[in-house]
Every structure is written in C-alpha cells, then in structure tokens.
C-alpha cells in the first residue's frame, strides 16, 4: 500500500500552537509541503511576523527569523539581497502586513525584492484578542469595534492584492483560501507558483490567504469556514491578480 498523502516533513512532530480549525495551520502546511516538493527545506529562510504566526517557529523545522511586528518584508529584503541563493519568504498576519507593516510591505513590493510574501487575512488581530484590523469587514464587531465597523469612523476593508496591483514591480499576486479541498489545491498551486517566481528571479510574489479566527470570531471551526464563504469571499474575491 502506498502512502498517497503525507504530513509534510517540514512540520515538527508535535501539535502546533494554533487554535482548533485555525487556517493558519493550513497555510503553514501548504508552504511546508511545497518547499518539500521543491526540495527547498534546507535552503529557505522563513521570516515570521508577530501575531499568531509566532507559533510557526515552534512547529516548522526550517531556518527562521522572528521579525519585529510589521517588518518582515524589510528583514526579508535584506536577507535575500545578502543571500540570493536562499529562498526567502515572509509569513504575516493582516495586522502585521497591512497595518503596522504596510509601508514595509509596499516598499518591498515596489522595490521588486525577490521574496515571497504569505499574507494571512483573518480580518482581525488574532493573537492579541481580536481587535479591528484594516481587513475587518463592514459592521463586524471586534474587541475594539464593539459597535461594529462603520465606514464613517473606520473606513473600509483593505484589499491588499488590489493595492499591490497598483505597483509596477510585483510579479505574482494571488488570493486563495483553504475552506475546502478544491480551494486547498488551488491555494497550494498558488504557493508553488509564488515560489517558482522567486526561483526564476522574477521579483516580488504575494499570496493572500483568506483565513479565519474561530476563537476571536466566536464561531466553531466549521462555522468559521461558512463565515469565510459567505462574508469574507464576497469582500475578498479569490483569483490571480497578476502573473507575469
């Protein structure tokens, strides 16, 4: 009998620190799986943002740099320029990438630094207890929008793929989700494509995962998938925004 689906070898042999049903785990799993397929586990560096992604370094067995909150892209740009033979990627939440780190993200993209950026959009600050993020949906209640997110006061959800698409340099931009098997497969293909861009020296590649935060959304894992499908995806349409 042949093993047709295995746990990626880049994952440590222990339970990780993410909550049950958190799709952070799913994204990490795909990244490890693609690195394994490309035989890059031994020549990659992961740059983690601050957020629930801080769990990564306890579960992923690759070289990694825990970066100051919001600064992974700046850190990764330096690492890649110094060590071009290393595959360098960041792993960041929406607070990290789209709020405190927005300038670093956009400027690395604008410089066309040859790095890959994974963006976990769960519409809140998961790690710190579910505060409003730039990506929080309209009317969504969070611990700092107790009365809901309202346009007048808080503006609108931030669409990072679309914003990055306004820049010249990025070479690959895609938005995916892991809510079901079909989407997981598409997400994996996007991760692969992104790394391929880096291997080909094409510059900045970016994959946004429309994700969940069952804990802070106050939903069961299954309910949270439904929420993604019904609420998140209409706001954050999936697809490839750029592939050159």
């Amino acid at each position: 009998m042949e093993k047709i689906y295995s746990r990626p070898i880049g994952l440590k042999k222990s339970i990780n620190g993410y909550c049950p049903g958190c799709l952070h785990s799913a994204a990490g799993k795909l990244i490890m799986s693609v690195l394994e397929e490309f035989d890059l586990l031994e020549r990659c560096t992961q740059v983690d943002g601050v957020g629930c992604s801080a769990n990564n370094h306890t579960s992923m067995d690759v070289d990694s740099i825990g970066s100051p909150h919001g600064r992974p892209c700046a850190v990764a740009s330096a690492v890649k320029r110094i060590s071009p033979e290393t595959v360098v990627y960041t792993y960041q939440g929406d607070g990290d990438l789209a709020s405190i780190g927005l300038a670093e993200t956009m400027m690395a993209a604008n410089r066309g630094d040859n790095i890959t950026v994974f963006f976990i959009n769960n519409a809140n600050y998961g790690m710190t207890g579910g505060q409003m993020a730039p990506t929080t949906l309209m009317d969504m209640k969070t611990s700092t929008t107790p009365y809901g997110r309202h346009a007048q006061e808080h503006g609108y959800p931030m669409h990072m793929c679309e914003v990055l698409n306004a820049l010249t340099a990025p070479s690959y931009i895609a938005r995916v989700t892991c809510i079901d098997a079909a989407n997981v497969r598409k997400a994996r293909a996007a991760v692969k494509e992104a790394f391929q861009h880096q291997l080909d020296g094409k510059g900045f590649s970016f994959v946004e995962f429309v994700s969940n935060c069952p804990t802070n959304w106050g939903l069961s894992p299954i309910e949270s998938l439904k929420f993604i499908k019904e609420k998140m995806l209409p706001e954050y349409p999936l697809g490839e925004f750029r592939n050159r």
Partner: protein
Amino acid sequence: MENSILIGGFGGQGVMIFGQLLCYTAAETTDKYVTYFPSYSMEKRGGTANCYVTISDEPIGAPKAEMTDYVVALNSLAMNKFVNNVYSGGTMFINSSVCTEKPDRTDITFVEVPASDVAREIGDSRVTNLCMIGAFIAYTDILPPEKVLATAFKKLGAKHPEFNALNEAAFKRGMEIGKAAKAKK
C-alpha cells in the same frame, strides 16, 4: 485570615469564571481584600489557563501566590503541574472525571469531584466549572453558597439566562459532593 486559591485547567474549561465568581462574590458581599490574577499560555484555546484568587482580611501583597491553601485542577495537566503549589495541610480539588492518577502527596487532602461527568449528566459540558465551584464552596465555607450562586446568575445569566438552570443544577450537585467530602474529613 487569608485564603489563597489556584485554579488550573485548559482554556475553555471555565477556569477564569471560577476565579471571578469567587472574587466578585467576596468583593461585593464582604469587606475583605480580594485579588484575582489570570495567567494564560500563548494560545487562546487548547492552551493552559490558570488563575489565582486571594481573599484576605488584610491588604494582599502577592496576588500570584507561590504556594496556596487550595488548588483546583480541572484537568490532569493542571493537577500534575500544581500539586506542589499546595501548602502542606492544604487541599487540592480535582476533576476526577478526567484526572485519573491522583498524585502522591500525603500531607494535603484531595477532594475528588467528577465534575465533567456531572456536567455531562446535566447535559452541557460547559457547566463543569460550576460543579467544581459548588464542591469547593461546600467544602471550604469560604463564601456563602447562595451568594456565589447569585453572582453566577448575575454575571453569567445576564447574557444567557437559559444557562441559569443548568448552572444551578451543577452547582447544587457540586455542593453535595463537597459536603460529602467534608463530612468524611
């Protein structure tokens, strides 16, 4: 008089509510000094969650007591981790439904409360903690049970009045278990 209590379990088991119900009751119905100190692991769910409660006649210096008079363990992880935090002569309450191997310490009393089983019987695993509180209060007499229950109604029933009956049932069953244990001592 100072009573210090350490409550430990998994996140989601109602550890914090346990501690807070004691504190609110003490703070709002007595003249005692009261402190509550929560301590989480990094993970929000699935991780460990503990809290420290101190109820005292005098100002409280160390709200996170290294050694406490009582430890309440809602799971075996907490039981094993905190068994040495009980003062000699103190008491450890264990959720015997999930804590199978009792630690061997002979200088403290163990009160076994099958709280998870009770909760399952009552029909909602979320009332495990109320059962433990019932047992704890009945055994220790630290606070008047009716006051604690009233606090539970006030704090937990506000949002979910439908839980009041379940909570009360669990609390009462816990009290019975606590009383029985006390009688034995």
